[in-house]
């Protein structure tokens, strides 16, 4: 038994869980929990903030909305979905967590994620580092030149930018061009060796989407649409998302 059992008092006030259920296919199966605890056994965030997925869902089921909506644990979930994978009832705890995040007032949401989302919305690169098109083009060309000049066997290496009709549209976490540009090269080499027809785009190239983690529906959708448009504009067939 838990040291501090969950205490419920009086009538169920509001039902946040039911609101979430109305949004999800099959209600996310949120009512099917047997409390087996497989979710908590597999969860990397179990035990943080005195919380675990089973307890989180129990609190939702018991209508403990105030506690549910205020625990910082909602921001510690990595959205890895392992809990669904191991759950015998396929309960969508990550979507419950996502909607809990969504319910937080924007100014109370974690500053780091919030800032990254805001920056990504500033221009069409979608870079959470704020990298603009010009800097991005420069870094890619500069690094590619360096490889061609200094690394035998890769004299023909290409890192195409805005190549119309390429098969693959490759995106790139924007941390690399800013802080670790050489980290981009191994993937280029692989694509070069297999003869892949690929391109970067000057727009919508940043792989990350912090607005998704911030659970801001309008904004993460906006970012996805910019990225999808960039792929379509170049007529690419496959969007390679490295995130």
């Amino acid at each position, binding site marked *: *038994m*838990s*040291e501090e059992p969950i205490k419920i008092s009086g009538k169920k006030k509001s039902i946040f869980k039911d609101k979430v259920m109305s949004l999800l296919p099959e209600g996310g*199966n949120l009512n*099917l929990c*047997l*409390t*087996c*605890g*497989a*979710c*908590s*056994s*597999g*969860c990397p965030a*179990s*035990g943080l903030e*005195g919380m*675990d997925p*089973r307890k989180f869902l129990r609190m939702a089921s018991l209508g403990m909305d105030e506690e549910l909506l205020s625990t910082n644990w909602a921001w510690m979930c990595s959205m890895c979905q*392992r809990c669904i994978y*191991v759950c*015998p*009832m*396929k309960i969508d705890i990550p979507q419950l967590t996502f909607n809990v995040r969504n319910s937080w007032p924007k100014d109370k949401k974690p500053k780091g994620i919030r800032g990254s989302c805001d920056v990504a919305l500033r221009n069409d690169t979608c870079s959470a580092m704020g990298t603009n098109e010009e800097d991005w083009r420069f870094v890619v060309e500069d690094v590619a030149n360096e490889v061609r000049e200094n690394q035998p066997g890769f004299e023909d290496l290409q890192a195409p930018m805005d190549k119309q009709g390429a098969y693959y549209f490759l995106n790139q976490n924007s941390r690399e061009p800013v802080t670790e540009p050489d980290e981009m090269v191994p993937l280029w080499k692989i694509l070069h060796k297999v003869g892949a027809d690929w391109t970067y785009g000057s727009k919508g190239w940043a792989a990350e989407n912090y607005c998704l983690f911030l659970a801001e529906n309008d904004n993460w959708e906006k970012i996805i649409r910019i990225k999808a448009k960039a792929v379509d504009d170049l007529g690419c067939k496959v969007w390679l998302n490295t995130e």
Partner: protein
Amino acid sequence: MKRNKVLIIGGGIAGLSAALELSKLGLESIIVEKEKNIGGYASQFACKANIKCVKCGACIVHEKIQSVINRENISIYTKSSLKDIKKVEEKKYNVVIEKNMDCDSEKAEISFSINAVVMAAGFIPFNPKDKPYGYQKFKDVITNLDLERILKSENILKRLSDNTLPEKIAFIQCVGSRDSTLNHLWCSKVCCPSALRMANLIKAHQNVDITFFYIDIQSFGKDFLNLYPELKKNMKMIRSIPSDVIEDENGKLKITYFDNTNKKSIDEFFDIIVLSIGITPNKDLNNIVDAIGLQINDFGFLNKSIFVTGSITGPMNISETIGSAGITALGIYNYLKV
């Protein structure tokens, strides 16, 4: 009435009990059993008496087998199956039995008439190989049925991989039961009582730590509530199901689980892991089920009727199965009498 014959499909505890009761009522029965021995799964179960009897029912199966063998109006075909059944008229069927199925040269068919059929073909144990617990990958991950068979013949449980004595054993409950991903929404009922009893039996004979991972203990019958406090006393009870099992380089089995008491994720190593596997429907005989007009429910078990008995209708323990067979025998008697 005297010349009425009843065909019983399945020579497990349900079929044997039904045959015995029919015999007492003056009816002749013919048991068809696909295995080479009668007694079914229940005959592989170990006696779980510690200092005193814990009423597991395993011994009753052997009494039943003995009684059936000694009865004159019960005939038994082992290694046999019902090949064909046709209704001739009300209360009269022509059947074809295939004998010695396992041996091509001795295979033979016999035909005769019967007046009623009892379906007692039992259950299929869930095969947990696709669950992330390493069954059939790691030698020391076994099922509760494997453990029953071991404890039936051995007093001391050893690791199957290297024959050494285990220091730590884990039981994981509800493997393949209460699981919507498999469409197995039922509780298999027998696993909690039997696993707890086996765990205690092991503790009585050897120095070993036992951890019991469970959702909630499902118990049926008045006696169990009296036994339970005693049964759980010597074990670590963890109200959480582990998400997977991994074998390390030394052959130890790692379980990661959430410890409610300390509110922490714990990695713990075990020498043997016992999976309490569920009881699943026996679907092998669906063609016969159709031929004699029985109904299959949404889960794949048979709906109860006077012609159906035992765990083919759903999970049940030995005593419940015997009770069910008694009711069936009386039902058949009344049906044929009219």
